[in-house]
């Protein structure tokens, strides 16, 4: 039980209307009033590591926008406020429990002090989404990420996230997580204290999200096109919802409903 308000009818028309808005590329949403205090709104912290430029600028604001539109989350009204670039040494690192590390190349390992801060962040409840924009599995970014995770969470290596993990049903019912490409048919994760602290995709998840200033998609999504792009968005939503709600969807009250729908989808 629990989850959505579910009015009957009109869903297709509303979806098309919203799709139109998406096409306009509007990234400002003066919609709900929201939350008391800026800190109560959901923000994404993008980890900015030295020598690792942001390969997908505009992707995370787009995800924030989608979160606002698709879920009950409240994010800051301005895109610039929804995503915050953070260094590991940044004093505000712990104001942002949700972190994203994206890159398209190998990067230099941060100093031990920064690594310790990231470990503390993850161990004490933070969450890290890693996304490789290299368009292939096993590139330089992949190698650097794995080395970083080895230092941050020694002994807890990334492992393939099981098909029955709650991540696949934290909001949408999903069977996979393609991004701009499908470089790896799986997503990996690192578990700490019975929760995923790190989720790692090599499918250039963020590459499927951004638009240009004219509302056009910045990158083609292959091989699935728009339906694959939609799945990429959905996976992004699921990751955020999982970070915020953990295994909420595994509670007994939800299982029967969700399994039933999953069977129908297949």
């Amino acid at each position, binding site marked *: 039980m*629990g989850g959505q308000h*579910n009015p009957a009818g009109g869903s297709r028309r509303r979806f098309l209307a919203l799709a139109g808005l998406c096409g306009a590329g509007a990234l400002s949403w003066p919609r709900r009033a929201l*939350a*008391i205090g800026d800190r109560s709104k959901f923000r994404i912290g993008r980890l900015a590591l030295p020598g690792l430029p942001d390969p997908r600028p505009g992707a995370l604001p787009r995800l924030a926008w989608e979160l606002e539109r698709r*879920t009950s989350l409240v994010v800051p009204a301005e895109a610039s406020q929804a995503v915050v670039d953070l260094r590991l040494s940044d004093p505000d690192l*712990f104001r942002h429990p949700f972190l994203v590390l994206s890159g398209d190349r190998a990067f230099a390992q941060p100093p031990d002090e920064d690594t310790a801060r990231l470990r503390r962040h993850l161990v004490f409840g933070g969450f890290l989404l890693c996304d490789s924009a290299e368009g292939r599995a096993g590139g330089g970014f992949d190698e650097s990420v794995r080395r970083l995770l080895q230092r941050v969470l020694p002994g807890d290596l990334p492992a393939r996230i099981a098909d029955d993990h709650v991540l696949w049903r934290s909001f949408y*019912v999903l069977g996979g997580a393609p991004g701009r490409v499908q470089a790896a048919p799986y997503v990996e994760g690192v578990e700490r*204290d*019975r929760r995923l602290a790190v989720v790692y995709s090599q499918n250039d998840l963020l590459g499927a999200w951004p638009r240009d200033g004219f509302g056009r998609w910045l990158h083609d999504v292959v091989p699935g096109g728009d339906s694959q792009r939609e799945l990429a968005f959905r996976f992004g939503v699921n990751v955020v919802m999982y970070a915020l*709600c953990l295994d909420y969807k595994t509670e007994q009250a939800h299982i029967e409903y969700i399994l039933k729908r999953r069977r129908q989808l297949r």
Partner: protein
Amino acid sequence: MIDSQWNDWWISLGGHLPPGLLALLCAAAGFAVALSAVSLLGARRPARSALLVALRLGGVGACLLVALEPALELRQVSSLPNQVAILVDGSRSMQVRPPDGGPSRAERAAALLRGSAPLFDRWRQDGHRVDVFRFGESLAPAPLDAAVDAAGAADATRTGEALGELRARYAGRDLGAAIVLSDGIDNGRIGRGPLDAETRAVLAGLGAPVHTVLTGEPHVRDLSVSAVLADEFAFVRTPIKIEAIIRQRGLAGRVVDVTLSRDGRTVDGRAVELGGEASEHRVAFDWTPDHPGNFVFEIAAPVLGGEALGENNAQVFTLKVIRDRVRVLHVCGRPSWDERFLRSLLRRDPNVDLVSFFILRTQEDMEPLDARELSLIPFPDKEIFHDQLRSFDLLVFHNFNYLPYKVEPYLAGVRDYVEGGGAIAMVGGDLSFGSGGYGLTPLRDVLPVELDVLPPGEDRGTSTDVFRARLTAEGRGHPVTSLSLDARENEVRWTVLPPLEGLNRVHRAKPGTATLLVHPSQKDGTGRPAPVLVAGTAGKGRALALLTDSAWQWGFLAAGAAGGAEPGGRPAGESGSGGAGGAETAAGASGAGRAFQRFWENAIRWLVRDPALTLLRIEPDRVEYRRGQPVGVRIRTLRPDYTPAAGVEVTLALASADRPADRAGEDRAGGKPPRETRTTTNQDGEARVDLGALAPGAWRISAGATLESGAAIEEQTVLVRAEWRELEDVASRADVLREIANLSGGWFRDGGDLEGLRIRPPRERRIGKQKTVELWSHPGMLALGLALLAIEWTLRRRSGHA
């Protein structure tokens, strides 16, 4: 010859001689006579032989009489009266009436005793004393009129034990007879018979006949709840089975509804078809406690027409329900980090059973073409706010707005749930308190803050400034805000916590609540510092208002501020925090990062009235007492740091818990119990109160005191139980009484009167005067004997015999 002043006489013979000499003399005399007879055998003149033998016999006899000195003993003797003990059954089963509604057994026994008064007078004239006793659980002398008095009827009949007491009372005395008037129902060592060895020995030791008179009926009609089989305690949300044994006699074919009631409300019922002339039926109820407490239950069957007794148709018992895990309903209007970190610590706590419902999307959010692609389900308003509500120990409304989810109709029920002993915590946000529109709902009655009446979503209900919450004087001593047992350290911990951001504005904290944290600069509607955290009671329940949604930063942000890596490459919090466990919730166990976890642990324990947090404790000696057993209560008072609070005045109130009316003072042995009494705790923070013996039934004992932390009330329930086996089967039992009579040499009578009962005469006599008259001790008797022997000798010589 015997004067009338002598009423007893006998002849003594040889009493002065030693027994050996007496025997020798008699033997010699017999030998002498026999020798004479033998010597004359075969004589030709039988007549002469007979004469010779007769002379020998007469001579020897006369000499023997002289030697034995016969005497007439005369005595003036009077008898001492012996006792006749009448034992009357004074138990509750004697209140049974026959189906036609005639006099009860006790009334019939009373009539029998009254009608026997002339007989008792005759017995007295015949030298018997009549003692009357009443027996039930024990034997006690009673005036004839009071022996069968219905008031104070005993809860049990222990006939064998009563006879044992009778033997002890009459040890060394002369008991002429005992008469037992009873219905034969025994719940002592005899039971339904046959008699046990001890009772048999008692009867033999009495040395007197025990006559038994049955005061019963040939047919009786009765339905009873003869036994209840239930555990003394149960766990919340764990199903238990409560069984009752229903006995009936003479009600074959009837269908009765047996009900299970809790605190006066029927919770279950079963239809039972009664079979056979006398039968026993086991009725089982399944019940799942939904919240902890001491509950008074009653299993009852209806009182049918013509029943012998109505009071055995119900049984009251208590059941203590304890909590093994705290069941928390976490309802959240929107995913947020505040929700996330609270959920994280709740789900890790092994003592918490967490049920969550989060609103992940609203009507305004985009819906996919196929709703089945969502893993979401409709909000189960009825299930959680109606069907399952009372199964929760605590509701957490976490920035949850009721309006879009059809919850409004259930809010009155939520209020009743809290007032009935539940608990609620409302956590702030733009969907909470006044901004959530709760000022218009029944929930405002239980929240510890007064809300401004605002439409839902109204921004005026919130402020967004960053502030550091200030601990109040009340907060310093309150368990919810106790981050450290050391008061000074506690204050320091609060001052170093990360600041909060955003506040739900309320008119004020309600009077009588405890404002624990306040805003450092903002004022409420009354000009006082705006409350941030308020704790209060609502009816029997508790409520907490946390007027911000940024408390999560007391944990995560504080952990980050602590900085640095933990030694050994593992976080300090991971290395065995225990309790809630896990690195995340134990974050910074040695630092400020633990505050969020500690705060919520405190809050939950306080909200659900964790006994360990109770500063006023009341502990009865036991949960159940027997009738007449004094009820004692130990009271303990504690300071906020859980050290003993000495010199605290505690008011103790006593009220019936199983009847609408207060029965304090009713039917109590040894004086009236106090309805309300006061006591003061000693240096150890303890006091003991003796409430005396209470009437059977359930009693609620409430203690109230003003402690340093504020007013405190604590309650306990105890049960005073009457012996119930007495009434479980009220049919009279003749067999036991018949066996008693047979074994003791007495007579059994089924009703009737006491005429003709055999009473053993008194054994004890007193000798007033006595006189000895010597017989035949005259010298002539010796001369006669010698003369006869001389004649016999002369004749024997003449006739040629040796």
